[in-house]
């Protein structure tokens, strides 16, 4: 049973199609990271979910209720904005209290002068104050409670924004790049905190980011959106190890995956150096395909006979790893290899090496970007097929 599901969400701005039928299910307690390059529609999707934009088509179901016609104020969906969007004239405590005041007090009780005369107002306000205090304490911002946003640091503002979103115990929690305004150190620290808050709150969370490291490290499942379509929704490991689309493979992974244009051989297999791959689907000879391999599965062979000859163009030393940019002698393509420092010692620009690729780590993508399930053939089988 999913706590939140989106079905076929469409959205266009004039002639520009931003969302092309996005469907997504989030379970109770699930943390989903929505990741993609800027302009892929992830923020629009989030705003539609929050009720700040209306979709052209599709359903948003929370619990058993279709929320599409419900205005944002009545959706019980909380959102943390990229800029935090704190009210600058209110103190931290007042900011956190806003959602409670709007929900728990009637329109008359909220009015200045008249409000205090309404029955029950004092009790309701006392309750709100208590909840705000508890929330501030749990976020460890009790000492900031009387400060205005202008007098707080970025990290403190972010906590107040989180407090404001969580204080009303929403049914769904949305976050729009909440860490992008923090400096690098704080960002890594805040990742852990947000995951911890999510675990405590226990509501489905959709977290939008363009930072793949955030997505992979925080989420239960990662949704990769590119060009208005949801290309893959899977656990971080599956997204990385088993991308279903060439764009997903390209977007996730640092340094980027190596991609080579190729085509199916006369026997319907795909050849890459001395490796032959057979696709589960029969490929007609000459079909263009793309072959991909992640940099860590490229091994550098210094003086052996195996592998494709290449020349080292650039060496990047990153401490725990070494990134090698090599140019293949045969086709002139650049191949990125990721090595451990031990493997990489002594390698220098201009050296000739041979590159070996892990056969079972090669991906084959069709021309439309879809992944073609494939498996390597052992050398003799390959030879046999070629002859027969």
């Amino acid at each position, binding site marked *: 049973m999913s706590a939140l599901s989106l079905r076929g969400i469409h959205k266009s701005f004039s002639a520009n199609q931003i969302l092309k039928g996005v469907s997504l299910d989030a379970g109770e307690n699930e943390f989903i990271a929505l990741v993609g390059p800027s302009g892929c529609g992830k923020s629009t999707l989030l*705003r539609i979910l*929050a*009720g*700040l934009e209306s979709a052209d088509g599709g359903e948003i179901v929370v619990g058993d209720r279709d929320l599409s016609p419900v*205005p*944002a*104020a*009545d959706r019980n*969906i*909380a*959102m943390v*904005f*990229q*800029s935090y*969007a*704190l*009210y*600058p*004239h209110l103190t931290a405590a007042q900011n956190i209290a*806003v*959602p409670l005041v*709007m*929900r728990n007090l009637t*329109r008359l009780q*909220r009015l200045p002068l008249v409000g205090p005369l309404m029955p029950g107002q004092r009790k309701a306000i006392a309750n709100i104050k208590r909840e705000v205090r508890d929330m501030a304490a749990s976020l460890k911002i009790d000492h900031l409670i009387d400060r*205005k*946003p*202008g*007098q707080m640091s970025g990290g403190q503002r972010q906590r107040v924004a989180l407090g*404001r979103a969580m204080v*009303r115990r929403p049914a769904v929690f949305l976050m729009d790049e909440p860490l992008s305004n923090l400096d690098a150190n704080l960002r890594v620290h805040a990742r852990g905190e947000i995951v911890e808050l999510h675990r405590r709150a226990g509501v489905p969370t959709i977290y939008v980011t363009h930072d793949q490291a955030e997505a992979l490290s925080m989420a239960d499942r990662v949704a990769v959106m590119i060009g208005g379509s949801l290309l893959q929704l899977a656990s971080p490991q599956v997204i990385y190890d088993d991308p279903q689309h060439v764009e997903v493979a390209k977007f996730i992974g640092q340094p980027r995956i190596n991609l080579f244009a190729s085509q199916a051989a006369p026997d319907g297999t795909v050849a890459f150096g001395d490796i032959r791959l057979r696709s589960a689907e029969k490929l007609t000879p000459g079909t263009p395909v793309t072959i991909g391999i992640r940099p860590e599965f490229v091994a550098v062979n210094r003086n052996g006979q195996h592998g494709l000859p290449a020349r080292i163009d650039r060496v990047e030393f990153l401490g725990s790893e070494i990134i090698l940019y090599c140019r293949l002698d045969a086709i002139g393509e650049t191949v990125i290899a990721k090595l451990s420092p031990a493997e990489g010692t002594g390698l220098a620009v201009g050296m000739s090496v041979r590159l070996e690729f892990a056969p079972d780590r090669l991906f084959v993508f069709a021309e439309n970007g879809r992944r073609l399930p494939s498996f390597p053939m052992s050398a003799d089988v390959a030879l046999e097929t070629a002859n027969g």
Partner: protein
Amino acid sequence: MAEVIAIPSSFGKATTRSAAERHESRTGWLLSMPAIVLLFMFILVPVAAVILMSFTDYELGYTGFKWVGFDNYADLVTNRTFRRSLWNTTVYTAIVAPVSIFMALGLAMLIESEGIGRSFFRTAYFLPVASLLVAMATVWQYLFHPTIGPVNALLRLADIEGPNWLGASSYVLYGLSIIGVWQSVGFNLVLFLAGLTAIPRELYAAAHVDGARSAFDRFRLVTWPMLGPTTLFVTTISVINAVKVFETVKTLTEGGPNKASEVLLFTIYQEGFVYLRVGYASAMTVVFLIILVILMFLQYRIQDRQVHYT
């Protein structure tokens, strides 16, 4: 200014200032000289002259003058015309400033929420500001004419007998106020529009998500507080402009009928340029200036603390 630049705080006592520091300080003064000279020539000296003249009985065309101390001011207290014009100015300001501020705010929000025609409305409402009030006064005279004027013709359609807007002593201030509002709404509106566009959209999104259901809730939560600095400025400008009302009075009513539309600036003008009693007019001007300064001071003291949030 120059002193701030010239004195580095971390170095020893001021008595041991090096030659370089003295030189820098001299350059600083030299560079600020043009501004200082202009400030004195065009602002401080004229004000001082007016204050000095207010203690004399100087009249234009006479060669000598006598110091009369506070006689002019003592006279003002008992002068019925002056007291009348003070009261009229107060009433006029009390009508024009708030009405033009809130009308401009309302219109600005309507225009802001409407995607199309924004620049058309902005221009249309700004026209009265750009037009010459003296010229437009003729049009208003026609509009307000008790028998052939369209305003009263409209009222007659609703079976209301319109008053003689500019000719009856009990209505003339209201007639002038309407023209005053007409003239200043456009200016305030443009300022409010600028203030509205500066409000981050995300704050409204946050207000929606936080449960601000009605437009009024969002206005109270976001628009009104975020417009604080703009409102402060608009209020200041509106009050000053209302207190300075002159053209309409001079061209349409000449302070009449029966001094019912005597306002401060008009009275000063009469004393100084018609009766040529410069000393007496100067005393009025000083009172006028003091009123403005007090108003501005109060406004900034009361509002400034509440509208700047950083």
